[in-house]
């Protein structure tokens, strides 16, 4: 019996002591990233980490001023009607597993992940390969296909990765390759010496999934990580004293918005959505929660996208009286508890939000209180971002505070067509169907004349501005901390690549 306990104790001690290696440091040439975005399944379309850390690459990419240039595609040409595009695949590129990049692999990738990537918004009928060319056929003219193929979720992986559904490893073509993905919360990368482009000078990367904003901030402050993304705005004050790290605030073409289920009464009425918009004090939120009054949205697109920002539009305003008026004319009356009632139904909605962008739940509570003032009762549910996407998919979502970039597809039409076209997308409208708008989108996608395009943009933006399929709340300042140990870091406004291969250690 004695031996039994002894054995148990020893086993326990041994298991606990089989400690793996100690803690890695900047000294061992490792960049560490604290990120709020989980790694998820090792599929390009499911894991932002893979493209952002430079494991997989897309066919095209945007330059800083928004021009689409080739990445894995050397060049491309459409036919005259813009219904068939031929992408010439870069030669001499090989995957991390040693297999060469071929048009065949690319075509297989695009076909396999078509429904799971931005490609689903394109009217694709067939993807094939001919020699070193990938041929994409569409059923209507589509001018922005190269931009769509720049979205991070269209990354290309090796043929071997396409066979099994979820593997423990992934082979892309990028400057970094995955060395260890056994830990579902951590991705270990090392520089790809055979990279076809600019090789990384830093040899190792650790991508850490840190869901808690406070922990990310603490890690940055303690100098444990070189990068901490998506920090609370107050991080600037909190980290002011830390001398090894700098907090950067950068305006990016992104929006925080209140997503509404337009298929659900009474949210299906334009007047009601307008009332909600009037009820929201965007200035207050922008100045107190986001920390920058200028981010209060006056329309959907920020001024940093001048082509899409229409200065002639009447800015959103905070006018609870107007909101009440609109709601009253929609047939609502206030009940005893101050909540609106129509035909015996209380105006109550469930609002979901997530905290990988730490200010969203706070904004949610602020909006909850603002809506309460005009008589709408909101219950909050907080989870991770899948509560939005799952809720959108299965139709149970009523409202959600979301944040989305306009430039994942480097042309904002990509975001528009993904988020508002035909009943909407995860990060945009939901069950809002407007044939006129859909027609405008389709027209835009086949138009090449700049003047016509400008007119179409104005029309589309005005329509969204008027109908509020999604209530825009604020534009976006990204807050992230960067260690003073690294130099050459620029934040990618397209949020598709951290640019780790360009980094060097500071002198």
């Amino acid at each position, binding site marked *: 019996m004695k031996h039994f*306990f002894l054995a148990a104790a020893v086993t326990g*001690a041994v298991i606990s002591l089989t*400690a793996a290696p100690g803690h890695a440091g900047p000294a061992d040439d490792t960049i560490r990233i604290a990120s709020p975005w989980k790694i998820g399944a090792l599929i390009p379309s499911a894991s932002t980490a893979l493209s952002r850390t430079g494991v997989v690459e897309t066919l095209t990419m945007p330059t800083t001023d928004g021009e689409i240039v080739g990445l894995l595609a050397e060049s491309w040409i459409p036919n005259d009607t813009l219904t068939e595009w031929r992408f010439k695949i870069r030669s001499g590129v090989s995957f991390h597993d040693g297999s060469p990049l071929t048009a065949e692999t690319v075509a297989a990738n695009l076909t396999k992940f078509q429904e*799971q990537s931005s490609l*689903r918004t394109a009217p694709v009928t067939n993807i094939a390969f001919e020699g070193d060319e990938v041929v994409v056929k569409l059923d209507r003219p589509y001018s922005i296909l190269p931009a769509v193929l720049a979205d991070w979720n269209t990354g290309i992986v090796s043929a071997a990765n396409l066979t099994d559904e*979820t593997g423990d490893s992934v082979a892309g073509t990028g400057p970094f390759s995955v060395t260890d993905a056994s830990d579902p919360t951590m991705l270990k990368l090392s520089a790809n010496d055979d990279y076809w482009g600019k090789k990384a000078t830093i040899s190792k990367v650790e991508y850490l999934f840190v869901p808690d904003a406070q922990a990310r901030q603490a890690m940055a402050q*303690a100098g444990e990580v070189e990068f901490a993304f998506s920090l609370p705005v107050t991080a600037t004050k909190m980290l002011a004293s830390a001398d090894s790290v700098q907090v950067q605030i950068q305006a990016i073409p992104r929006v925080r918005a209140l997503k509404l289920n337009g298929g659900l009464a009474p949210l299906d009425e334009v007047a009601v959505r307008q009332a909600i918009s009037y009820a929201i004090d965007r200035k207050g939120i922008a100045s107190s929660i986001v920390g920058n009054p200028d981010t209060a949205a006056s329309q959907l697109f920020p001024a940093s996208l001048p082509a899409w920002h229409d200065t002639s539009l009447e800015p959103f305003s905070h006018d609870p009286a107007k909101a009440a008026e609109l709601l009253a004319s929609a047939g609502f009356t206030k009940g005893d508890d101050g909540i609106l009632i129509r035909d015996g139904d209380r105006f109550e909605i469930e609002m979901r939000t997530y905290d990988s962008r730490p200010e969203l739940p706070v904004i949610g509570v602020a909006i909850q209180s603002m809506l309460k003032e005009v008589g709408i009762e909101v219950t909050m549910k907080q989870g991770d971002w899948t*509560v939005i996407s799952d809720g959108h998919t*299965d139709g*149970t979502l009523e409202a959600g505070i979301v944040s989305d970039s306009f430039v994942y597809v480097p042309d904002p039409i990509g975001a528009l067509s993904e988020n508002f076209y035909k009943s909407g997308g995860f990060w945009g409208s939901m069950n809002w169907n407007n044939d006129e708008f859909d027609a405008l989108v389709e027209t835009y996608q086949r138009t090449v004349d700049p003047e016509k395009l400008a007119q179409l943009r104005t029309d589309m933006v005005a329509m969204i501005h008027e109908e509020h399929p999604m209530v825009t709340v604020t534009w976006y300042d990204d807050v992230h901390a960067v260690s003073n140990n690294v130099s050459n870091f620029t934040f990618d406004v397209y949020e598709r690549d951290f640019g780790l291969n360009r980094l060097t250690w500071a002198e």
Partner: protein
Amino acid sequence: MTLAALLARKALLILTITLLVASCSFWAVHLLPENIAMQIAAARFSGTEPNQQLAEVVSQSYGLDRPILVQYADWLAGTLKLDFGVSLVTGRDVVQDIAHHGQNSLRTVFWGFIAGVALAVPTGYVCARFAGSHLDTVLTVFSAAISTIPSFLVAIVMVQLFVVELGLATLSGTSGWARLWVLVLTIALSISGLLSRVVRTAVIDVRLQPFMLHALIRGVPERELFWRHGLKNALRPVLNYLPVVFMFLIYDVIVIETVFNYHGLGWALINAVKALDVPLMQGLVLALVLFYLCCTTLSDLLTWRIYRHKAS
């Protein structure tokens, strides 16, 4: 009670509880308003917008279209085989995730427990030995305070102090001692508060027992008295208290791991909860419950071993 009877009893208890937890999570999920097939579809084909058609495919491949009682029986059978299915988020086997996170948790829990006991027992003994003195008062107030402060607060303070301000510990990496010691210390602090009070009471009680005086009458030297006669008797209430300590350990695992961003079972559970990843959630809860039960069984066996005379 014989050893066999004790083990049989424990086995029955573990079985009952496993079924209880499995049933709870099954029915909770199937009473959910959300469509589980849709959810699985969304997770499996991450990033897409699964439609009804896709959901039906999932429904069939997962057998979600069968009568609910058949599914229930299957679920229980799967649980008993420790087969919890596949995580909705990562698509990995739940068992694989549990093994991975469990290893991390085991490390902290084991050392946290050892450190907690190492902290609590001497403290409690010293308090009892010098009961009523200033030292006793100070230590008692300190341990009472520790046991009243929620462990998430202790954890927050430890992070601020040791990680941010002093830079003596880190929040990343899973196994380096630079990371572990502060976690272990936090767990140890949080369980030692109440444990040291129990030790103190037990030692005081035993020292007041008449048989201690009579041992002195038999000539037992005073310096050997407690170890010879007190220890085994004082140990009993402490051993009886261990299940409560284990319960706190489990709670600490959840809360402290979350604050420390330590990728153990508790951290995984909170994230699974946030993502509504039901298979992972149920697997993790069951793993934690079973771990707890194993601990209590071990402590019961230990008690049995020490006091088996008493029972016969």
